[in-house]
């Protein structure tokens, strides 16, 4: 039996795919922004915060890094309502992605921060900069620059991981793919298109961040 593939029946559904892709990008963008900030705060706390806070952050990082994203998402979406915290699929997805990225970003940034030469901090302190100023102006920019490739990789990983969010009916790209295949009964071809769409998004996001980082975040 010859293998018959039919891609037309998928491509005619392009508005659905496009909408899904747009949501995937939007989720990733928000999670990157929030998760990045969370990571910076936690990295700072881990590098120079009080002991209890350091332990707390350490625990958070290890728990997130050693459990699957899908379990984190399900815990937030199905578990939290028990505490009266009822989140929409979209909000739950953003929260899960943020918490997840935040943990990885903490570790990545910490490595960059620890690489800052002691002399630079001393120089800044001797110029009477406040502790916060030293961190945001002297320590962070070169650290960010140093770990940017690792951070970008992690952001892409989180975006690819967000495919799971379709499982709680977040209407992102994998959800759209699933919807299309349930309409046209062409599961294999549909998933090929969906998968390749993710590949396109991954390449796009990676290049975009490589381009944007030096321009907006840490100078050349």
């Amino acid at each position, binding site marked *: 039996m010859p293998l018959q593939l039919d891609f037309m029946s998928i491509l005619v559904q392009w508005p659905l795919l496009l909408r899904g892709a747009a949501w995937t990008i939007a989720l990733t963008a928000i999670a990157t922004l929030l998760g990045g900030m969370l990571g910076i705060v936690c990295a700072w706390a881990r590098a120079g915060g009080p002991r209890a806070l350091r332990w707390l952050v350490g625990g958070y990082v290890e728990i997130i890094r050693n459990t699957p994203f899908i*379990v984190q998402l399900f815990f937030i979406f199905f*578990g939290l309502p028990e505490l009266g915290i009822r989140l929409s699929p979209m909000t739950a997805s953003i929260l899960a992605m943020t918490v997840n990225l935040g943990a990885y970003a903490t570790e990545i940034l910490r490595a960059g921060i620890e690489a800052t030469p002691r002399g630079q901090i001393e120089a800044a302190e001797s110029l009477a900069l406040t502790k916060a100023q030293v961190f945001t102006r002297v320590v962070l920019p070169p650290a960010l620059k140093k770990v940017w490739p690792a951070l970008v990789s992690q952001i892409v990983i989180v975006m*690819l991981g967000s495919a799971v969010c379709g499982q709680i009916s977040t209407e992102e790209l994998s959800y759209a793919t699933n919807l299309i295949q349930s309409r046209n009964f062409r*599961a*294999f071809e549909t998933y090929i298109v969906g*998968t*390749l769409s*993710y590949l396109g998004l991954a390449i796009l996001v990676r290049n975009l961040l490589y381009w944007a980082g030096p321009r907006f975040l840490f100078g050349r």
Partner: protein
Amino acid sequence: MPEFTLWDIVRNLLLAARWTVALSFIAFLGGTVFGLLLLLMRLSGRRVLERLVGIYVQLFQGTPLLMQLFLLYFGLAVMGVNTSAWLAACVALTLYASAYLTEIWRGAVAAIPRGQWEASASLALSFGQQFRHIILPQALRIAVAPTVGFLVQVVKGTALASVIGFVELTKAGGMIANVTYEPMLTYACVAAMYFVLCFPISLYARALERKLA
């Protein structure tokens, strides 16, 4: 309505966790074998093979594991293979692991100075002997920590097999949450079990990294 104790939940999860361990083991083992094959293809010096492996790695690292699982699940069916969630999960995770492992090892091999290849070549060793006796032992040392670290990714990756209906730890968690109406407790237990599986591996990988650095 029957009452469920914490032990009921934990016991059933533990039973399901065996499948998580089994799947992780198979994927890691299969990924190792297949990844080594890909590595040799990549080192063969043949442009076409190098390119193909490069594309393979890009494909698996640039797309969601979830989609790979779906693709395998439906793809095997299209190819006429009598498919099951178990088979699809094993194959998909093996391919996924092989792509990452081959890339880790390629980096390790690339980190060996060219002089080592040249010195062994000038001693009339064949390519196979150069790789087996000179490059591999040194590359292994570099690769062992990230390889062990990747095992954590594999264990976590098996959780996605739940989506295509394979009953491992995560899927069992979902089923138990549905009957007990205790999703928070159940998913906390699920997470704790993954943590117990993964955290020691993470620690071990970190210790190796420090020791071999």
